[in-house]
């Protein structure tokens, strides 16, 4: 499905979790990882829409993709002194990595493609 705003994405996640009877903790993590990737897209690219796929499997598979230039995909663990110096978006990506079993990024055909499992 294609979305044009974070609030659209948020409403979709709420209804997806309700419809699939997803537990509170998993729904929290699902919402978090998607929010971080989608807000990064709106903040740091000119792209106005993203495509989201969620497969209700065990583990759950999530794909977020949108047209963009290749992204510098470096995640550094924040520390006591490092938080204020982190690259913008860095904390969000770190949370995504922390909350997922697997998290991959590739750039293909002019698109950033994130694949995650939780």
């Amino acid at each position, binding site marked *: 499905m294609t979305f044009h705003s974070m609030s659209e994405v948020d409403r979709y996640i709420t209804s997806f979790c309700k419809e699939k009877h997803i537990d509170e903790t998993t729904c929290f*993590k699902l919402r978090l990882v998607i*929010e971080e990737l989608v807000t990064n897209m709106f903040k740091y690219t000119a792209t106005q829409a993203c495509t989201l796929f969620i497969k209700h499997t065990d583990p759950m598979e999530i794909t977020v993709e949108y047209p963009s230039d290749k992204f510098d995909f470096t995640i550094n663990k*924040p520390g*006591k002194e490092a938080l*204020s110096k982190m690259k913008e978006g860095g*904390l969000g990506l770190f*949370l995504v990595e*922390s909350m997922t079993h697997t998290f991959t990024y590739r750039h293909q055909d002019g698109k950033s493609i994130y694949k995650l499992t939780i």
Partner: protein
Amino acid sequence: MIEIHKDKNILIAISGRLDSMNADEARETIMESLAEVDKDIVIDVSNLVYISSAGLQVILKCAKTAREHHKECSLKGAQGTVREIFQVSGFLTFLKETE
């Protein structure tokens, strides 16, 4: 939703969600109340059900503001996945947890 009470501490109670959709408004509300910081800050998240990195940035701003005024900033009532987020993000290394 944010409630701020000034008593022996500056108590900032955040309930519901703190995310990219309301973080700017929350930051504005909180910073207005932190124009003068003459007491320690306690952030009560016992009724916070969801937080993302945008919300964490609001908490970080509170902690920095307290430090600028040579005051302490502590966290109260973090539980479940909300606490996990504070922990994995490293926030519990500089935010003391309080009862």
